[in-house]
């Protein structure tokens, strides 16, 4: 295994480090790595600082616990305050969350773009404006359908259930180059088939001369007068120990740490938004997991992570999909323990897990708490709770239609059900909001774009209102939930905003 030229990690840094560059980018995920590749290709001297480590494809295995500890922030154990609390996960490694996501790659729905343009006055963001960027993103990330031989039996069963119900179900578009169907997306793709930033834009940026520093945490964005002047941080040693100080001087600072870390960094740097929206407006696409047991072997880990999406209810803010979970993850969410848990898990290869992804209307907020770091509060609205319950019901219906014999619902205290009739009877009574078991991997909206500085934190091209030289380049920019897997939207916006920035730099701007 070798490390690419231009990539440096903690072991290589023995003392304080001061760098000068044209643009410093914080974070190497979908937004940061794309920005780095675009700017470096245009001749900008780019430094990327990534808090996580560098883990090459050859190091990836299907060991869930190890992956959670090495590729995810906080072991993947983020949790919002609210009732119910929502468990969330963020990637933290070179390549960011694209290393551990499911690899779904969809264009932003035009109705969402129209809403962003209409409500926030964002320039050049309608479908016709973004089409060229989507096309470039899809070419770079090899976006397309799965090869048929990699579709697993869990996905096939879920599709059969949706077909039996007469629902619209579509093959997923995924950023993959002949995905082998190892079902290891969330532990890092062991074949390199998933076209994450680790194997696309990061090496592209390095090849264009960008310098990438892994294991480097940025503590604050520095300013000189109203404008930014660089960033300060430190090396992260093994076990999270604090290493030498790092200073990077740059006239352009691009923050791409994700919708929780980006506002947290900006806030602890003393930056404020006149809109009052920095750290607010968090959307997170809550999802839930329905567990179904079949009479026959499914072996859901033989095949691609998610092959299809039910789009029948997309207009209502509900998308359904089958997602195989490793034993580690499944055991963590099953509502059983002791011998009963053992009996359920003994049927692991007869289990299909599936669930809804909800376009939420409620919002949350990020606050920095001394000693604890960023804390997230999020209150599920009644309508979102109803949508989540409806999504669970639809998922269970599809699983029964596919032949499931027993279904476990993601509601605290809910009994196991064995028929659609039992499902209807159970859901005839309201499900308390606090009983919902919800998860999130789509965090968005905490530095939202708006042409109006009184409404948005950032402008039409990701520039932080009122702070020359400061940009945001991740899903924090979204004015609201995108309603679909957000990665391609982040990449396309980063390409578009990079082009705008390059043109601006060419005119002598910053």
């Amino acid at each position: 295994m070798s490390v690419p030229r231009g990539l440096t990690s903690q072991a290589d840094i023995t003392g304080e480090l001061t760098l000068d560059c044209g643009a410093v980018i914080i974070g190497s995920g979908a937004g940061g790595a794309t920005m780095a590749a675009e700017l470096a290709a245009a001749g900008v001297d780019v430094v990327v600082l990534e808090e996580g480590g560098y883990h090459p494809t050859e190091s990836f295995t299907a060991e869930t616990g190890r992956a959670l500890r090495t590729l995810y922030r906080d072991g993947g154990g983020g949790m919002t305050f609210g009732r119910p609390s929502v468990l969330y996960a963020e990637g933290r490694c070179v390549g960011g969350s694209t290393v551990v996501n499911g690899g779904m790659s969809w264009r932003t729905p035009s109705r969402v773009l129209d809403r962003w343009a209409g409500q926030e006055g964002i320039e050049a963001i309608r479908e016709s404006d973004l089409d060229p960027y989507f096309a470039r993103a899809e070419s770079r990330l090899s976006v397309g359908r799965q090869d048929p031989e990699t579709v697993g039996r869990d996905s096939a069963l879920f599709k059969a259930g949706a077909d039996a119900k007469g629902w619209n179900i579509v093959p997923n578009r995924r950023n993959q180059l002949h995905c082998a169907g190892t079902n290891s997306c969330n532990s890092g793709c062991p074949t390199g088939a998933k076209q994450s930033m680790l194997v696309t834009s990061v090496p592209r940026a390095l090849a264009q001369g960008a310098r990438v520093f892994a294991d480097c945490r940025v503590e604050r964005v520095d300013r000189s007068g109203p404008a930014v002047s660089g960033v300060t941080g430190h090396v992260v040693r093994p076990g999270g120990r604090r290493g030498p100080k790092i200073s990077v001087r740059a006239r352009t600072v691009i923050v791409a740490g994700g919708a929780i870390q980006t506002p947290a960094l900006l806030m602890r740097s003393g930056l404020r938004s006149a809109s009052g929206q920095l750290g607010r407006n968090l959307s997170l696409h809550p999802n839930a997991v329905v567990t179904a047991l079949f009479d026959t072997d499914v072996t859901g880990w033989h095949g691609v992570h998610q092959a299809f999406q039910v789009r029948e209810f997309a207009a209502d803010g509900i998308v359904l999909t089958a997602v195989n979970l490793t034993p580690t993850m499944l055991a963590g969410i099953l509502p059983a323990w002791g011998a009963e848990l053992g009996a359920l898990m003994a049927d692991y290869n007869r289990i299909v897990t599936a669930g809804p992804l909800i376009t939420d209307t409620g919002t949350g907020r990020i606050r920095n708490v001394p000693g604890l770091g960023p804390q997230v509060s999020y209150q599920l609205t009644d309508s979102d709770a109803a949508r989540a319950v409806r999504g669970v019901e639809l998922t269970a219906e599809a699983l029964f239609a596919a032949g499931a014999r027993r279904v476990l619902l993601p509601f605290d205290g809910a009994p196991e059900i064995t028929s659609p009739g039992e499902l209807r009877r159970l859901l005839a009574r309201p499900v308390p909001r606090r009983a919902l078991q919800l998860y999130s991997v789509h965090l968005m909206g905490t530095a939202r774009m708006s042409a109006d500085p009184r409404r948005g934190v950032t402008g039409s091209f990701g520039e932080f209102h009122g702070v020359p030289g400061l940009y945001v380049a991740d899903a924090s920019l979204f004015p609201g939930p995108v309603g679909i897997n957000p990665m391609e939207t982040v990449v396309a916006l980063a390409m578009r905003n990079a082009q705008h920035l390059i043109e601006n730099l060419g005119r002598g701007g910053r």
Partner: protein
Amino acid sequence: MAGPSSAPTGRPEPARPAGLSPPLRRAARRFAEVVCPPEVRAGQRTDRVLGELGLMLAALPPAARKGLAAALIGLDQGARLYPPSRGRRLARLDDRVAAAYLRAVLTRPGVAGELARRLKGVVTMCYYDLAEVQREIGYDPAPYIAAVSRRRLESYGAEIRTHEAQQ
């Protein structure tokens, strides 16, 4: 500063589990024996679950780590208030009473029940992260991954190499 390294630079995990304190370890051991399947007591698996738990807790954010550790101690000591325990903590209860006590806590609404359920989730994750346990339930991904990876390269190798060269 030295130049780029010549070896993978992923942050290595600590050589030893971040230590569970003795009281935490006692409570965690008894908790694991009850919430994991009975086979957890075989072949020193409980020790390995506790090792995984130490690593997992060390990776969690400070608030969650402190909350779960406090919940574990609270569960252990809270058993004293459970009448059938006759004032004993969880670590000293026999299997039947310990199971009844945890059933009462795990099904309880409210914050205490939610914390206990989260803790149960983390501990059972640690159990099912053990490779031998995974093999027992028919999950052994390494040979499968090797086989489909070979198939991928045999079927599409030329196209893959061309694309990678363009990156």
